């Protein structure tokens, strides 16, 4: 018994020694990228492309020599759509794994759960989704589109084309509520009217009553801000009830690829403004899609989240290489020069120094009865200007707040 015990300890020691040896051997320690994306649960179908995009970017970067000669190590944890788990995993990545950068989060609720934790560290955090906008936080760099890029383009177009009466169906959490606030603000400027607003708890899948409320209110078009697989059942049920209304959204098609998941014509007459959708047909976009599908042949759709997640890692690479450092303060110095740009598949995109949000080339797309996607209008590159306009300037101060049309910075 005794000797066997000793043997075990000896073996353990050997293993530890070997482990120590192998890390000592590497010339430069690898650069650690912490990634939090849901790949199970209600949002798995949109989180999966985010994980894939990150993996593809890391593989490409490592093949071409890494970042500043350091290999990139991707540490992915799956918070399964649970905000408490987002916080727990974020602490683990930041404190135990000591990642150089944290990326991820799908819902705005998960992002707001993460931010206070990241803000206590000096680790940069990339949020890679389109969202309801307004976060003015020096730790956070946002690479997705925001309302001035999505709603300020879509809503006037919808009003002009379909009419002034709008009914809003939105998920009942910060994203849905703040997006609805944006809609009210923009509609007011256009002389439009919100004839109904309904906030739906996440996980609800039955919409017969909502459909009838809409028919009663007689809107000209619907603003769809429903989130998650369960709530997406609305489209099938509305089509079956022959609701037949034009729809607009900031998250459908390019993000949730509902036109691929539902049988036509459930998504007929849906409109959205997007910086990326898989149907973009340019040489750069096609090359990007080709690389993606070569690595992930079974991907149903490369959504804008996946696309943004991929480019966020290149954005980080650009910042680190220009700063010759991984420290947040040094990266922010690069951002402050106003010359933090990369050539993405949509074109050249840059980080705005005041808000640390990203400029995007926006296109308005529509879905036809066979679920074919057509580009209705090309807006060119739109800057994320709103935060700067209302007084957020991260080069001067760091309020770590999220502003909305009804919650503006205090005038000093």
């Amino acid at each position, binding site marked *: 018994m005794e000797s066997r015990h000793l043997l075990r300890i000896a073996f353990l020691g050997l293993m530890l020694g070997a482990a120590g040896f192998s890390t000592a051997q590497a010339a430069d320690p690898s650069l650690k990228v912490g990634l939090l994306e849901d790949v199970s649960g209600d949002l798995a179908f949109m989180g999966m492309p985010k994980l894939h995009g990150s993996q593809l970017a890391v593989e490409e970067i490592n093949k071409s020599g890494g970042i500043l000669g350091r290999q990139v190590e991707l540490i992915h944890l799956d918070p399964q759509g649970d905000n408490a788990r987002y916080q727990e995993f974020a602490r683990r990545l930041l404190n135990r794994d000591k990642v150089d950068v944290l990326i991820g989060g799908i819902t705005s609720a998960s992002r707001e759960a993460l931010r206070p934790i990241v803000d206590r560290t000096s680790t940069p955090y990339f949020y890679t989704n389109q969202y309801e906008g307004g976060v003015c936080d020096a730790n956070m760099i946002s690479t997705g589109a925001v309302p001035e890029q999505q709603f300020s383009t879509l809503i006037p177009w919808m009003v002009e084309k379909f009419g002034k009466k709008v009914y809003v169906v939105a998920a009942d959490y910060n994203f849905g509520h703040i997006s609805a606030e944006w809609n009210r603000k923009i509609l007011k400027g256009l002389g439009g009217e919100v004839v109904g607003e309904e906030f739906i708890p996440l996980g609800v899948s039955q919409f017969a009553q909502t459909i009838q409320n809409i028919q009663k209110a*007689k809107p000209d078009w619907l603003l769809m801000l429903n989130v998650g697989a369960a709530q997406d059942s609305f489209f099938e049920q509305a089509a*079956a*009830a022959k609701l037949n209304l034009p729809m607009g959204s900031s998250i459908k098609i390019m993000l949730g690829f509902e036109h691929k998941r539902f049988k036509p014509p459930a998504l007929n007459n849906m409109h959205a403004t997007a910086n990326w959708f898989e149907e973009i047909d340019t040489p750069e976009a096609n090359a990007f899609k080709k690389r993606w599908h070569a690595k992930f042949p079974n991907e149903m759709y490369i959504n804008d989240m996946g696309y943004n997640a991929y480019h966020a890692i290149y954005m980080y690479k650009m910042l680190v290489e220009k700063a010759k450092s991984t420290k947040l303060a040094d990266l922010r110095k690069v951002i402050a020069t106003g010359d933090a740009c990369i050539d993405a598949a949509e074109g050249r995109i840059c980080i705005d120094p005041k808000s640390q949000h990203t400029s995007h080339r926006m296109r308005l797309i529509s879905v036809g009865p066979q679920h074919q996607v057509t580009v209705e209008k090309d807006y060119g590159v739109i800057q994320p200007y709103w935060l700067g306009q209302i007084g957020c300037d991260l080069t001067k101060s760091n309020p770590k707040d999220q502003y909305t049309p009804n919650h503006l910075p205090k005038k000093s």
Partner: protein
Amino acid sequence: MSAADLFSFFYQFADVFAFLILSASGLAIVFGMMGIINMAHGEFIMCGAYVTVGLVNLGVPLALAQILAAIAAGLIGVVVEYFIVRRFYKRPLDSLLATWGLSLIVTQSMLLIVGSSIRGIGTPEGSFAVGDYTFSTYRLVLFACAVAVLVGLYIIFMKTRFGVLARATMQNAAMAKALGARTGRIYAISFGIGAGLAGLCGALYAPTMTLIPTMGATFIVESFVTVVVGGANVLLGTAPAAIFLAMIRMALNASYGQIIGQIGMLFAVIMIIRILPEGLSSVLVRRGR
């Protein structure tokens, strides 16, 4: 109130009622009668939905695919009963853990094997207009199916020899066994019927919903709530519970929206469990005697 609004009220009630009955009927047998806290109930529903979609994609007509899917879920239920559930009849709380584990394994395996989402098959054509409103015919088919399930359960459990034996076994297994009932087989068949009804629920709702491995979760709260409010008796418990909860939810949904509808329904559930811990059937069955 116009005729259109009146019809709309009925339609909304029928819609919620069908959802509650179809999602709860399988659980009413497995949990209400047999006492197994089946956390994998939602996965039997998912199974029914996925088999339906798979068969429709192979060219099987929808109605036939739905029947086959319910049968498939029922057969899987019998297998699950034989290998897992059988060991937990005397340990109801452990059955919760075992079936929850099963549920996690099944959803995660489906995610890995089939992927995070599959393409829907579309609701069968057909809609009609009443006044300003248009309605989907398929939602009324769901209501008809819910009523048919109740009638079917009544016939099986009240009018057949198997029903008598099953009720005897659930009330006192040892005595039933002593009198010659093959209780093992009766448990297996009852669990199979419960699983099959869950599968039928998934099959019927498959055309109207997003198909993801965790889709069963959207049914599970409503199904447990209905069964708990109803109590042990499937017919005198689950059906009145569904009518009661559907009325509350429909009225609140219509006037205050989905959030209040959900809160109100759960609040009513808390009140009922507080006042009638054994569920509605404890009152109704006593009256009937």
